[in-house]
């Protein structure tokens, strides 16, 4: 009884500090301890800007699967929708989310709304507009190439917007070139051979991915973690450690990739956001 009261006080203080600092509150220590190790794909708090990188458009399926798996975790009673945004002319390159596929993947197709703007300006506007909505759990934006409009300023804007509203933004990006961005978490998703199927070693089984956490900002409740894991998708448990990958050993707590943005810039933007 006493312990829970103490926890509540700590959580309250955390929330207050977060309010002062305009940041998402730190994840509770109890939650972390229960997980045994820091597995940010399991408990990354809402209200963050994520980047999910994959090497090329042919790995778009895995990247979308990872983003939707994370998005599904954030769906709740008050936040029921996930938006997928993609430039209309890029649909053929990476494919459109397919309702029947979502269903067999384990994602409710009714919860996904597609937005297909014509240019990157409209796309960024749509992300901001969508994440500001109280009922949106996550926005998944598929962005091919390296558009100039999506610079550090734009990503900082999105990140502040996400923090303010508590919805998450997942930018699905392709290529090897990383630009400066204000994303709280940067993931790299690589293909991995699927889980074995009992009685049929010629058939692909449950989806698996190799996920590398390239960067995480220490201040956002996800710690200055880095690490890589092999994840296994099951409809019941979402993305979780595949058998034989103990993960915890590979997560390395390290210095944050970089700290706060330059004071002047941060100040200006926090006013804007």
């Amino acid at each position, binding site marked *: 009884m006493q312990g829970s009261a103490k926890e509540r006080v700590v959580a309250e203080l955390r929330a207050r500090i977060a309010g002062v600092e305009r940041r998402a509150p730190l994840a509770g220590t109890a939650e972390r301890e229960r997980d045994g190790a820091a597995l940010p794909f399991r408990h990354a708090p809402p209200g963050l800007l994520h980047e999910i990188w994959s090497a090329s458009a042919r790995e778009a399926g895995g990247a979308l699967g990872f983003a939707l798996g994370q998005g599904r975790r954030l769906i709740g009673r*008050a936040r029921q929708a996930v938006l997928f945004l993609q430039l209309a002319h890029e649909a053929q390159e990476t494919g459109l989310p397919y309702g029947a596929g979502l269903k067999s993947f384990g994602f409710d*197709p009714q919860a996904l709304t597609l937005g297909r703007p014509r240019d990157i300006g409209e796309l960024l506007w749509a992300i901001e507009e969508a994440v500001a909505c109280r009922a949106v759990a996550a926005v998944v934006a598929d962005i091919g190439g390296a558009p100039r409009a999506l610079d550090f300023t734009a990503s900082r804007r999105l990140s502040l917007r996400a923090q303010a509203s508590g919805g998450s933004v997942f930018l699905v990006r392709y290529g090897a070139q990383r630009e400066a961005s204000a994303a709280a978490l940067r993931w790299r998703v690589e293909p991995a051979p699927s889980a074995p199927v009992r009685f049929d070693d010629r058939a692909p089984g449950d989806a*698996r991915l190799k996920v590398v956490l390239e960067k995480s900002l220490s201040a956002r409740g996800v710690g200055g973690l880095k690490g890589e894991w092999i994840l296994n998708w099951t409809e019941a448990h979402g993305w979780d450690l595949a058998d034989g990958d103990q993960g915890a050993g590979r997560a390395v707590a390290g210095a944050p990739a970089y700290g706060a943005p330059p004071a002047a810039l941060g100040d200006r933007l926090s006013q804007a956001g």
Partner: protein
Amino acid sequence: MVLHLPRWATDCLKRADRRLGALPLPLALYERQQGAMRLVALDARAAGAGLSEGQSLSDARALCPELDAREIDRGMLTSVFADFADWHSNASPIVSVLTDSMPYGDLALDITGVAHLFGGENRMLAHLTERLEMLGFTVRGAVAGSVGAAWALARFAPGQVAGNEDLPDVLASLPVAALRLDDAQVEGLLQMGLKRVGQLYGRDRGALRARFGGTLLNRLDQALGLVEERVTPRLPIPERHAERRFAEPVTLIDDVMLTARDLGRQLSAQLEAEGAGAQSFHLFLYRIDHKVMTLSVNAARATREAGHIARLFANRAERLSGEFDAGFGIEAVRLAATSVSPLDTTQIGAFETDDGAADLDRLYDRMASRLGPLAVSRQKFVNSHIPERAVTLEPAVARTPDDPQAMPDAGLPRPLRLLPRPEQIEVVAEVPDGPPARMVWRRVAYRFARASGPERIGVEWWQPGEGALTRDYYVAEDEEGRRFWLYREGLYAVETGRPRWFMHGLFA
């Protein structure tokens, strides 16, 4: 009220090209009809010079050597006339173009309950015709209780206002052509010696029907007001509206949007007083050069919140940006609401409750108003087993109920991403009807480690479209772990000797 503009074609050209109006030359328009060039429209000078419609161009040139003849552009004339008609909605909300004799030239206005604003029917008629004459149009108008009678009067006895009880007397003396009949019918009546409408009264209806068909009687009854005739309004009839006229024309879109915001507040108060909300909002911009621009936005659920309406228009205007053309200025703005339905005050409070559906609808409204209604969509299942037909996109703002029969089977392997058009690939298989072993897709070679299938999907033979072949779908995983959905088109040795392969989707 019907306004008849007999010289619309030439007046319109003269207004568009001032030099043409300034020259003292007769103007005529001709059209190629069965190899001959015949006059189809004349201005007053040309008519005065003894030319007539239907005359051949060479005859007309002989009669009147200084004639300025041009080829007619019917499409242009019709569309300009439609704009011109829309502009008249500043006089009455229900305006339509009567296309019985020509696609342009006749305008019908329903002035029920409007005339008193102009000080009576006579003064309204005078006001509208004077206004058009000042702009250089030849116009004749008449007011009557039925569209048919007003049309007849406008052509043959303009300037009149006829009450319902006088209609039979007023129409009796007009020629039969006043009944909007086709040429053959008029000719037949004249041959029978029936020249005036009055001569048709009391004739044996059975005989008339047998000789001229039902349309004659119908037109007669319509003109006399015995049969109600409906006109199709060109613009949606606003159920509720608010408008503002400017002392000076405005040209900036920002000013227009500010006005729209103000009008939105007025309209919202109006709707609130009635306990109603609306789903469609239309902003009419009346330009001083007689064009009307319409911006329409739709909301997913009935609303009357001024801020939301204004935001939808602001987004819609952003999408417009380059196309906005105020011409010489906008003299009046009208905001109208249609699809009005009762909206309880409690429903507004939904914003405060925990149900996010109202918020989501607002979001979709805003996105659709800026990105276009088709750009914000959700997936709807269709009862089909052809993968690309099984799902369609429908606008998120106009949801329809799901078909429970169409729900896909979650047990079937279906990719997370589907390519809208399958891409042809080069595949090597160990045997022609076996699983794929290697492929080249987008110029990159892949070697498959595992594959499952085939899932055979047959043609929907009951659908139109020939030449479709059976598809064998495989889930194939390459050595690094990318999972693809590919299919072989055509059954080997049964439907085709060389089956082709296609890439159709990507799995997680």
